[in-house]
């Protein structure tokens, strides 16, 4: 009976391990990201965030599911398509803390996300939070640039933030459009490490340029 029990435990463990091994994390992630791309309604993105959470549970130690959970949470907060921004910010902060402790994670992308997180915090209440968090936004992006000078995302986000700051200061940021022009090339030169590695930013750049540079 004892031996049978041990065999059952062994079989259970093997089957459970097999079940996890059969998940191809990258493939699954690609599927979710494709669905996110196809999503017309921003509010529907949260369903995919939940799928990513399930994927994160099946792919322990992988950083990309956590990265995209935090990124999409922040996109939802910034799009104002959620009535629970505080919950999403809390979740993003939690994922950021996990990413910082994950040696596999691309540190430049993680610090880009950190700057983005504080940017989302400011967007919640610019008058109160602007003064509190603007340094963290700049520091996050600058650290990301230092860690990987070829990463276009922190450069774009920093340029956008500085342009907003200039507007807040009622100043003109003359170099903004040139910077966007230059960054477009940086985006085109950037080669993501894999099909699912962070590659966002270029559509935002084009959109910002269309609205700001004539």
């Amino acid at each position: 009976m004892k031996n049978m029990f041990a065999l059952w435990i062994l079989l259970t463990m093997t089957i459970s391990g097999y079940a996890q091994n059969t998940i191809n994390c990258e493939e699954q992630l690609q599927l979710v990201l494709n669905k996110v791309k196809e999503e017309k309604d921003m509010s529907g993105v949260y369903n995919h965030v939940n799928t990513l959470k399930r994927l994160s549970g099946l792919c322990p130690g992988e950083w990309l599911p956590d990265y995209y959970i935090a990124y999409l949470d922040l996109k939802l907060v910034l799009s104002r398509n959620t009535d629970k921004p505080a919950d999403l910010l809390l979740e993003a902060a939690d994922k950021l803390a996990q990413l910082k402790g994950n040696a596999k994670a691309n540190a430049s992308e993680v610090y880009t996300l950190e700057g983005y997180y504080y940017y989302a915090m400011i967007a919640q209440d610019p008058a109160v939070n602007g003064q509190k968090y603007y340094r963290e936004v700049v520091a996050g992006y600058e650290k990301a640039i230092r860690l990987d000078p070829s990463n276009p995302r922190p450069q774009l986000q920093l340029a956008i933030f500085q342009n907003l700051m200039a507007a807040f200061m009622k100043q003109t940021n003359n170099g903004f459009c040139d910077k966007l022009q230059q960054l477009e090339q940086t985006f085109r030169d950037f080669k993501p490490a894999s099909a699912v590695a962070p590659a966002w930013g270029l559509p935002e750049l084009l959109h910002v340029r269309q609205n700001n540079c004539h």
Partner: protein
Amino acid sequence: MRLTAQGQQQITGMVIDVKGQPVEGANIYITGTLDGASSDKAGKFSFATTQKGTVILGASYIGYKDFRLTAPVDQMGQLKIVLQPSEKALEEVVVRASTFSLGKSRTLEKLDALDVVMTGSSNGDIYGALMSLPGTQKVGEDGKLYIRGGDNRETQTFIDGMHVLSPYSITAQDMPARGRFSPFLFQGINFSLGGYESEFGQALSAVLPMDTKDVAGSTKAGINFSPLSAGGGGSVAFRKSSLSANVNFTDLTLYNKVLPDRYSWKKPYQSLSAEAQYKTAVGARGVFKLYTAYDRTAFIRTFADTLDHVPQRDFRLQQDNYYLNATLKTKTRHNTHLFFGAAGSYVDNRYDNARFQRDSYHQNEQELHLKARLEKNIMPGYRLSTGMEAYLRGYRAVYHDTLQQRLQDQQVNYQLYAAFVDNQVRLLPGLYANASGRMEYAQFSSAWNFSPRVSLNYLANRFQVSAIWGRYYQMPDNSVLVAPHENMQQSVASHYILGASYEYKGRLIKAETYYKQYDQLELLQQQVYHANGYGKSTGFDVYFSDESSVPHLKYNVSYSYNDAARLYRDFPVMSTPLFASRHNARMSGKYYFPALKTYAGVTATYASGRPYRDPNRDGYINAVDKDYFSLDANLTFLISKQVILYTSCGNITGRQNTYGYRYAPSPDATGVYQGAPVMASRNNFFYIGVFISLKSSSAYDVSSF
């Protein structure tokens, strides 16, 4: 339960919270698979799975405990899932009683470096800004922190958990001191006005633990200058580390020429302060910080103690103040937080022409502080923190008379060892208890002392109520230890605190009442110190802050009542200490004018008159001074994103505040003790300075760290 065409099972149901409200966005899934769905606005969900037999269904949403249901998959139709609110992790529990968590917690009492600078009464000084909080006492002639009827040395400062022996700059008599440290160095300040954790000992009234910022994210540099000071600094950020430095030089020569004070200066006040910090990540979870600060202050003031009939002399002061602090914080894979720290302080004071022309008084003090601490969540609802520390202290004072003969050479060296344990327990949802203890061995008195502390806190969503009892020990001042004494012991204070707070949409109201009982205070009896002194301090504080009612306006109002009395030092009878006033009220506000790109900060401070001793009357402390009032303001102009113009004015109304009276030691020919009011060296203080960030990407970042 429905079987789909492909043999899939359909799982449906609804997610609600304990109040029966639907939870939108919850993640419902079969564990170990990708099968799942999100709940909609009505809390409803539906998804198909190919799983067969018994499965585990999970449901989760941030802020709620994870839900688990183990059942055959074909029985999972029309599920009703009730999510229970999750308890905060013990390390996230922020107890507001008696504490102002500045910049560190998610509570409203956020005060970052810019808030410090923009507090009307601060003049860019951390201690000045803290004086706008309840429980503090305005003592204008020395500028130090006096908390809830306690003396200034009863409040101790810690940087990254390590003690600072001398956190203030030295000044001339009746000139307010300032904190030595740049407010921009810190990311969080936990100012506790009593009932603090047993990790912090050697403080009878309050502790001010300040945490320096983490590794700098960006390289930056800046300079600043004003008619009385110039400085600069910056940070160099590396991949995993950063090196920051800051230097400031202050010289009041020009300022005194334009706006002379009441004093006669042969060499006006000058100070050089420098600080540097190296920070580096250690592995994925650790950080090492090495911080050092140096201050040199010097001046020569020509004056005579006319009341004491001491002739005019050129009083010369020179202080060198060194501080070094190294800490390592790390977390193991098993979530055990470890901390190791070492801090050294050395303060050298040299006074020439101290009492008479050509005499000298030389005093130095040093301290080595070592600490190790471990923190761990032992089980859900129980967090343990424990550690040990040692203080090694030395003090020497030498006096040479006008003929340079050594009349006095006093010194003392002693060690103090302590171990502390702090147990934080969740008793019931929202109800937390903390029981901690600190055992100290004071080598000076060969005595063991035990300091227990118990707190009970109820934390609802917006409301908190706390009750704290704690006992704290502190060594008498070194000047007492080197004087003739018998059976000296550590002084002891017991704190009883009851407080409540309510936070609502950017507004916070706090009310606290406290009782402090002092024992074993130093008492001078027949020219010998004994530990026979005692005292009490009781009162209440009320605080209201609001950052949401009026756009761009952040303000707070507070009132403190205190009734203190002691028998200590040379008091012949139990009396109110000279620094304690009964009523203290403050109002502080900061407003941003978007059109002008200007922040304006205003602080109004009121304190009822302080007691003093008039030898011409019967009794000991037998008179009360007039009330204190000061209106302070500052303006911060954002000239460009790299240039800030900062200007401040202390005591705008020019009111002549007095801080009691000093009297001659003996009566004059008519039998009257002549006296003079104690006043600050000047009524107003004006400052104008320019801060320039040398980095083009910086948005008004004047921080060097």
